[in-house]
């Protein structure tokens, strides 16, 4: 897929007569765009087919937005990324739709509180976690990303609090709260050594010749 993006960028660059650096920027943008579109389509199809479209969209967007600000463990290949992403979206959405709403309200409230407290501590201590392909060197950028991450966390906490309140008044939104909780838990786990080891194991499977 990455090679496809490079081929397209080369074709655009040759037609428009742009320099090599501009072609590299376009290839980078097209790779990002392809990744976003493919994961979105997979999440939408999976959600639509298995009856948890709302949950899969919550997982797709909340992990994506949080990840842009806090970074985390990275897959070494485009295909590895696709498989991990689709598996996570499907697994968390299914858990949030079919299993976790069976828990009583106090479990949902307690888990939400524990997950957000843990997430805030991990973000304050570890974020942003960069990758060798995109190092975050400037301390000003690190501060800006961390501030943004806390902004997103405040928005998630407010949304969860409003949804919990709605749930106590007879609303049926436990599955959406669980989807958001699992996304926050997963993404903040990716900041730790444990998350990094997990992604490395998946990577090894994809780099092994068939």
């Amino acid at each position, binding site marked *: 897929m990455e090679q496809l993006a490079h081929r397209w960028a080369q074709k655009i660059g040759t037609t428009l007569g742009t320099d090599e650096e501009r072609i590299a920027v376009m290839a980078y943008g097209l790779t990002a765009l392809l990744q*976003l579109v493919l*994961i979105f389509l997979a999440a939408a199809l999976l959600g639509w087919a298995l009856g948890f479209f709302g949950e899969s969209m919550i997982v797709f967007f909340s992990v994506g937005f949080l990840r842009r600000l806090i970074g985390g463990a990275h*897959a070494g290949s485009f295909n590895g990324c696709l498989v991990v992403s689709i598996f996570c979206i499907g697994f968390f959405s299914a858990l949030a739709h079919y299993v976790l709403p069976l828990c009583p309200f106090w479990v949902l409230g307690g888990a939400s509180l524990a997950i957000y407290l843990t997430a805030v501590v991990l973000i304050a201590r570890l974020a942003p976690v960069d990758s060798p392909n995109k190092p975050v060197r400037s301390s000003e950028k690190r501060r800006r990303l961390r501030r943004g991450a806390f902004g997103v966390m405040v928005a998630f906490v407010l949304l969860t609090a409003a949804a919990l309140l709605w749930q106590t008044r007879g609303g049926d939104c436990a599955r959406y709260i669980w989807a958001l909780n699992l996304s926050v838990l997963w993404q903040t786990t990716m900041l730790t050594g444990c998350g990094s080891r997990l992604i490395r194991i998946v990577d090894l499977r994809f780099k092994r010749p068939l």
Partner: protein
Amino acid sequence: MKKKALAALSVVATLVATLAATSACVWWFYQPEEPESLKNL
């Protein structure tokens, strides 16, 4: 016409690249190598 479509795609790709450059990573798990000109954003 084809040249206009390619120019539009080039603008979209450059915009996405700039947005990705101002964040900690692109989206989900794969991070391609960042071009030199975007490293200071």
